């Protein structure tokens, strides 16, 4: 019996509430990281030519002379106004840069996850239905190799093969050929914006640039999904209700898809949370390899020039993104599984 609607809404509300302390914890940690700057932040922001007095002035200006709880309160206020500070390398507000670059990262991550799910789920199902055959061994090999491959290394290998040797892929430099201007910004996803603008050539170029980075990131995320699908399917295929369904003479397809896979979906969706954590981290490395203009390469550039406001803004943004993704996963979970009552 599915839960009645009001109860379900309450479950969703409860889950949203649960995210609050997590977000608070994230903000506390990010704040502590900001204050743990090597040396004195005031000296750092004052620049190399500063004397004692200007350093003291900057310290007062930044509020660094006040006690930590007061500073934290101000930090919260800044965050509430969407102020993540100003990047010292570009002079732009950090939040502005992050928002401009975020769609590029999201497009890459989502494309990679789509690829990973489309390959990993069928592979996991095949391996579970044919244990100890070549499919199973292949699955096991891919799973182990997939988690062992450093993403940045896979990316460079793919660049060497498909760009240098075969010449199929465009050079690993950004999202478009230099020939094209980026399509008019609607969603920030080039593949969608190009369709809206009706520019076929731009779409082709964007897609061609997306393939290798998405493949690189996808290969990395594929392993945990395939592993979980296989394990969940194996467990469910061995359970009593499957035996009953078989005895009742249902078709193989019906048993696999409608009975087993629907149930296996839940643990698989739960692992997606962990997969996102890895994918968002690996994203940084992939963006660096392909000079992808997302928030990951922004953070790497900021790290090189010690632009701390930018790095901390990036860490906070990534953490909030991750919390949001997990929230979406959990809510999907409530919608898929009629048994789940998150309030319990």
């Amino acid at each position, binding site marked *: 019996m599915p839960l009645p609607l009001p109860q379900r809404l309450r479950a969703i509300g409860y889950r949203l509430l649960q995210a609050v*302390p*997590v977000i608070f*914890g*994230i903000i*506390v*940690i*990010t704040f502590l*990281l*900001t204050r*743990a*700057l*090597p040396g004195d932040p005031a000296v750092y922001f004052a620049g190399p030519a500063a004397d004692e007095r200007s350093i003291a002035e900057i310290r007062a200006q930044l509020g660094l002379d006040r006690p930590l709880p007061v500073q934290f309160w101000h930090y919260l206020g800044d965050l509430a106004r969407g102020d993540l500070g100003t990047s010292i390398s570009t002079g732009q507000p950090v939040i502005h840069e992050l928002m401009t670059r975020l769609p590029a990262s999201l497009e890459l991550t989502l494309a990679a996850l789509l690829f990973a799910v489309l390959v990993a789920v069928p592979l996991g199902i095949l391996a579970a239905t044919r244990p100890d055959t070549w499919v199973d061994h292949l699955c096991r090999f891919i799973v*182990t*190799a997939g*988690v*062992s*491959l*450093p*993403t*940045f*290394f896979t990316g*460079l*290998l793919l*660049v*060497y093969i498909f*760009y*240098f040797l075969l010449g199929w892929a465009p*050079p*690993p430099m950004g999202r478009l050929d230099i020939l094209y201007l980026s399509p008019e910004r609607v969603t920030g996803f080039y593949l969608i914006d190009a369709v809206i603008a009706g520019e076929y050539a731009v779409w082709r170029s964007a897609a061609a640039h997306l393939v290798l980075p998405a493949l690189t990131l996808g290969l990395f995320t594929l392993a945990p999904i395939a*592993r979980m699908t*296989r*394990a969940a399917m194996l467990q469910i295929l061995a359970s009593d209700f499957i035996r009953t369904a078989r005895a009742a003479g249902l078709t193989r397809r019906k048993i696999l898809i409608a009975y087993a896979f629907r149930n296996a979906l839940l643990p698989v969706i739960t692992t997606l949370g962990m997969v*996102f*954590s*890895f994918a*968002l*981290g*690996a994203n*940084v*490395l992939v963006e*660096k*390899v392909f000079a992808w203009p997302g928030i990951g390469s922004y*953070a*790497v550039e900021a*790290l*090189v020039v*010690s632009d*701390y406001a930018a*790095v*901390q803004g*990036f*860490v906070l943004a*990534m*953490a909030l993104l*991750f*919390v949001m993704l997990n929230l979406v996963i959990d809510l999907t979970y409530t919608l898929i599984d009629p048994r789940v009552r998150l309030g319990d």
Partner: protein
Amino acid sequence: MDTLASRPNTLGRHFLYVLSSNPVTAIAFALFALIVLTGVFGPLLVPYDPLATHSARALEPPSWDHWFGTDHLGRDVFSRVVVATRLDLLISVAAVSLSFVLGSLMGALAGFFGGWADRIIGRVLDTVMAFPLFVLAMGIVAAAGNTIENIIIATAIINLPFYARMVRAEVNIRRNAGFVQAARLSGNLDWRVLATQIFPNALPPIMVQLSLNMGWAILNAAGLSFIGLGVRPPTPEWGIMVAEGANFIVSGEWWLTLFPGLALMLAVFTFNLLGDGLRDLVDPQRRT
């Protein structure tokens, strides 16, 4: 009588049985030995000084003189890859041991005492896990300073929750077990029961985690140095070598990237296989 004679050797036999039934595990143990030996003796055996530049012979493809070719400064890639083993192993071993010790301590306290200790520790761990872990490591290194020690600490922090949660679960299910009550009745203090009775029983699954974690720690540290954190050139380290080689891959000098990358992959692969093998050894039911 022959059962008695064979009994002391059960674990050894089981070990041999696991090795023979799964040759992959045997290979993993062999590779592991190879990596450790390379880490220990590598710097003594390499044909060239890993830091010696030789501009006349820059960017040469692999040959008899230079098995893995030379890099853009004419340094021998083979020597650099071999010498790097020690540093990469050291970073990951240090990070994993640190998170093992701290994580076990936190997990044991949470699992044994429950209540407030459990709630606070659980909350802290949840908060760490709420970050994408590699990103958190980047943030920690950026804030604390760009040194190898901080790479180790950051890697340890992001691995810590895995140990703490595992130890907590293992300790929690045993805290009122029969042998624990017996130990208490015979007058042992809490911490003594925890250290000598409960914790050793929780070790086997943690050893598996340790091995799986090593691979991940190596990947993580190499990833950090790939984006320019921690290890600095010209120190030979796999991640930074791949990063240096990345500039040359678009013009076809593949050997700069391939060999350190393969070494890294082999190391991670070995630890993952080893972890799976150890799991078969301690817990045959959890095979996946």
